[in-house]
């Protein structure tokens, strides 16, 4: 299982990230102090696969912690309220893999985490949802062992649903993530793609429409 360390001085934010990442299948540990974070990393050197780091921290600030982490080669995503370009550049120059500005949306956080883990080849290569198995690298989908042919957009849509199991995904978000364009209320395209996914995967019951929101993939683990 992939282990993630969350360092943020705000307990509510730690809990928020913890809850969502745990639901996405990660194991999370959180601390609220820079020095404690360093101690913890020191103690369990190779344990963490990813560190989410705030910058303004009591004890040692995020940049100090980053200095400490860099030689260990653990990927880091800064999560901070500092939004100015110079802060971002400083964070990235110090060796962070990504930079997420508060306030952020959960989907965004999960996508960034996935992206960084993928870059480090730490993601599970096979995503599962029921009897559907997705080989991300090979871009191959099977259902009960039988290969399913999907278009590029359908594949991306499927992956988004599987990465956010049991989470209602908003139309805007889906559209923006899959089509990489701004959503202008034209839901026909999206509906058609979801319809096709349902048919191809036999997910008429699992891919449910959520009234006034969008869609949710419901699978029992």
């Amino acid at each position: 299982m992939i282990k993630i360390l969350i360092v943020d001085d705000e307990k509510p934010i730690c809990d928020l990230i913890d809850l969502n990442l745990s639901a996405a299948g990660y194991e999370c540990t959180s601390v609220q102090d820079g020095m404690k974070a360093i101690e913890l990393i020191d103690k369990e050197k190779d344990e963490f696969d990813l560190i989410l780091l705030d910058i303004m921290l009591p004890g040692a600030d995020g940049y100090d912690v980053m200095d400490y982490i860099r030689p260990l080669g653990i990927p880091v995503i800064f999560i901070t309220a500092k939004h100015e370009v110079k802060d971002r550049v400083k964070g990235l120059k110090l060796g962070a893999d990504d930079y997420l500005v508060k306030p952020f949306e959960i989907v965004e956080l999960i996508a960034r985490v996935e992206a960084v883990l993928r870059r480090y080849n730490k993601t599970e290569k096979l995503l599962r949802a029921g009897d559907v198995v997705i080989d991300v690298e090979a871009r191959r989908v099977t259902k009960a062992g039988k290969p399913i042919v999907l278009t590029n957009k359908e594949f991306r849509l499927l992956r988004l649903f599987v990465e956010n199991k049991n989470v209602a995904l908003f139309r805007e978000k889906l559209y923006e993530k899959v089509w990489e364009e701004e959503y202008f209320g034209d839901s026909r395209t999206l509906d058609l793609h979801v319809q096709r996914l349902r048919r191809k995967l036999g997910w008429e019951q699992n891919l449910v429409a959520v009234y006034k929101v969008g869609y949710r993939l419901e699978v029992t683990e």
Partner: protein
Amino acid sequence: MKFSFKLLLWTMIVMAISLGFSGFYFVNYVFETSLEREIGQAADENSILRFAFETAALNVPVKYGMLQDDTVEQVASNLEGAQDVGRLLRISDEEKNILYASDGFEADEALLAQTGESIKAYRVINMDGKYYINTGSTVNALDRMLYLETLKDVSEVFSERTTGFKVYRRMTILMLVVGVVIMHIISSWLTKPIKLLTKATRRMEAGDYSYRAKKVSDDELGQLTRDFNRMAAALEDNINMLEEEIQAREDFVGAFAHELKTPLTSIIGYADMLRSRKLDEEKSIMSANYIFTEGKRLETMSLRLLDIIVTRRGEAKFQYTAVGSIFEYIRDTFSEKGNFRFEYNYDDGVVWAEADLIKTVLVNLIDNACKASEQDGLIEVSGQANDGYYYFTVRDHGEGIPYEEQAKITQAFYMVDKSRSRSRNGAGLGLALCAEILSLHESALEIDSEPGVGTSMSFALTLTDERKEAQEYEEDKEVKEGETDN
């Protein structure tokens, strides 16, 4: 055109004109005096010759009772030859026919027309590039009246004038050249303060506000330089002040954005989770609770900010306030707080203040003291009248403030221990508000803290003698009302 060049040019023009005029006048004056003298001499000579002629004519033996033409000729040539100076003369008879003329006497006879009995005449003539004075008079010898003319060479006087002009012209040119050099030096020396000022202006324009012009003279330009520097200093101060103000404002906005975003992240995140995920009851309640508490935190922050803004606007209602009432209020407010031991100890006195604001300051200070103290910690609230001031002091025996943080704690959003302060609903604005209120009262917060021992926060207000002040106040009011009546 450069000012120094203008100065140089005009000086040169004036100098050339005055040198030219004075030179012309001087040379001419010398010439005219010389000519006058020569004319005088010529006239004298003429008289001498006439006399000599008349004398000579008397001595000549007279034939036929009258002076013969050839006799005249003889006498004239004698006169001419007698003085070996190349004297030129001409003698004409009554009908103005020439009887005798020296060699080279080639002047026309125009002068004879002007000459008459007892009328002497002279003129200056130019013959073949030479100048002569031509004089004419009448000679009475026996019964004849003859005309005697002389010619005196005065070319020298004229050539002296020409030489004079030439020399003077050369002198003038030389003087002008020397003048240009000297005036150039003088004008650049005179305009040096202007150059230095211009340089200073350029430097300041380029943003170097600390540059000052060098003062090189004590005259009006030196005065100008000094005034300019004084202005530059004032300007620099203002700019520095503005920059500091801008920096402070930027810091404030930055801190504000950060403090705003932190609760917003939680609120948005948990709300997002609630709307998109099926959560069990425990998690739903936790999420809702976080949204509530973080919302409350935003509320506290916005109220405090509002307080600060209102205070900054300075719309406080000052009045005479007995400190006793303030302390009573504080005692009531904190009587409910059982976790701490409060000790009150104060003198009586009256201060000129906005009571509600001073209460706010004390409540904030005591709140901070509580935050720093352990359970059952002692918090001392005291007031002392001393030397015309009333000192309010809040002392705790808590953890103290690290020395390096003490200067920063009145900055907005600054928190010594963030996580601890947050857990007690602090926004980091309390002391900033206190500082604003106190600056409105022309006072300031004094912090005396030792880590591990405790903190003492105090401020002073001017103590007033109520009756006296009240009387003055009333008088003031009457005067003002009187003014408005008029």
